[in-house]
């Protein structure tokens, strides 16, 4: 069997390495799909088009994790303007300052060693 498709995760991370937040769009469903996958969860179609987000979104839910060692940090769910949600964190402000409804902008947390790049956000006013 020839390899006819890159792993969706690899394509996604390759985009991140180029400072791009990529997502998929299902024409059949007429809506965004995230996380990236090989079948549309709304229609079952395998026709998913890669698109690049403008990187703007709104905090949907937020928590402050208090680890047993180290400083508290933010974990949030972000609704991107293109209509998909992802887990991330909001940086540049104190974790308890992050609030639902806050407008945020994407940036890349670069790869470190074996750890691939991942998307983080900062408040729009400070980005």
């Amino acid at each position, binding site marked *: 069997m020839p390899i006819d498709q890159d792993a969706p995760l690899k394509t996604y991370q390759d985009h991140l390495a180029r400072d791009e937040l990529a997502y998929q769009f299902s024409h059949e469903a007429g809506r965004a799909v995230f996380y990236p996958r090989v079948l549309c969860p709304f229609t079952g179609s395998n026709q998913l088009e890669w698109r690049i987000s403008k990187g703007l979104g709104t905090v949907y839910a937020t928590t402050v*994790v208090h680890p047993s060692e180290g400083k508290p940090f933010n*974990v949030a769910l972000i609704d991107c303007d293109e209509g998909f*949600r*992802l*887990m*991330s964190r909001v940086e540049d402000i104190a974790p308890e300052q992050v609030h639902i409804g806050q407008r945020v902008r994407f940036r890349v*947390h670069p790869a470190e060693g074996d750890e*691939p790049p*991942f998307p983080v956000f900062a408040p729009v006013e400070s980005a």
Partner: protein
Amino acid sequence: MMEGLKRGGAAIVGVAESDLGQVAEGLSVFDLMAQGVGRALDDCGLKLKDVDGLFSATTQSRLSVLGLAEYLGINPPFLGSTIVGGSSFEYHVAHAMGAIALGLCNVAVIAYGSTQRSVGRKQASAREINPHETPFKPFLPSSAYALAASRHMHQFGTTREQLAAVAVAAREWALLNPAAWEKKPLTIDAVLSSRMVSYPFTVRDCCLVTDGGGAIVVTSAERANALKKPAAYVLGCGQSTTHANISSMPDLTVTGALTSGQAAYQMARLGPQDVEAVELYDAFTINTILFLEDLGFCKKGEGGAFVSGGRIAPKGSLAVNTNGGGLSYCHPGMYGLFLLIEAVRQLRGECGPRQVKDCEVALAHGNGGVLSSQATVILGTQATL
């Protein structure tokens, strides 16, 4: 979806916990399951040789039902190991009921065991990497439920004090249950001032980390009539899964309990107003609020006010989590079996100081993953058939 199952077609006839809390050193999950199986069979007067259906789920054995069958020395023709988190056992009840109706088995035993307190949470369940969540280091499962709580607080004005009221009510019930882990009273202030885990949850908003296990015995309604104790008939059941990971949950304020509950009520031809003992999977304080709403005991968004003022505590107007719940009784990793055990005991009138008076209908609602898998089982006495 569940229209193939007949209201009251099967019954839970035997229930038992294994040792709970911090169990003896060296006990395995199979030792705990087997304790539960032996005690649950004694409870109904059936023998191991009667068991022809076997179900189990645990995070500590990949092929747990094989291990359990070997341990018990039985070769049941029907096996089930659906594992969808803490609600697995409510799924097992529906699956056992279906198998019994089809004649694939007649006496099904559903067992659970965990030694997570003794061996540590990290040993008890393998860490899974999700490339879209793990980089952000959520403290799972707590942070997932905390995200849901943040949304509920934002949309409906639910407060930390209202969340704490759930923990306080659970503790008051636990003080009436000799088997409960927690033995001391709890106040709202004590919940709020405890160690923060993942805002808005302190450690007192989170379930216990205990060892424990148990088993229940399910058989046909015909056979149930002839056994030792009054049977708890399965009047309705329903299941719903909305996601696996919290970042894929469609609406963090509405759980699959809405769908599973409607299916269970429809099959039972009953509504929330008919339920006298409500056993809800309270892994976190927000759970009780979400499930009271989604199962129709109050309107969406009003759960915070509903749980306040002792309404769900002993002597309140609705008996919720009468054993003390996962918050104060026990929580050995997956708690769903204990909801069923308590519901059956309430229907039998075995609960001593925490007994709900004249209890004829009880509801057990299991939750698995991070609000991911929801399963409702409505049980009733013979009078409800």
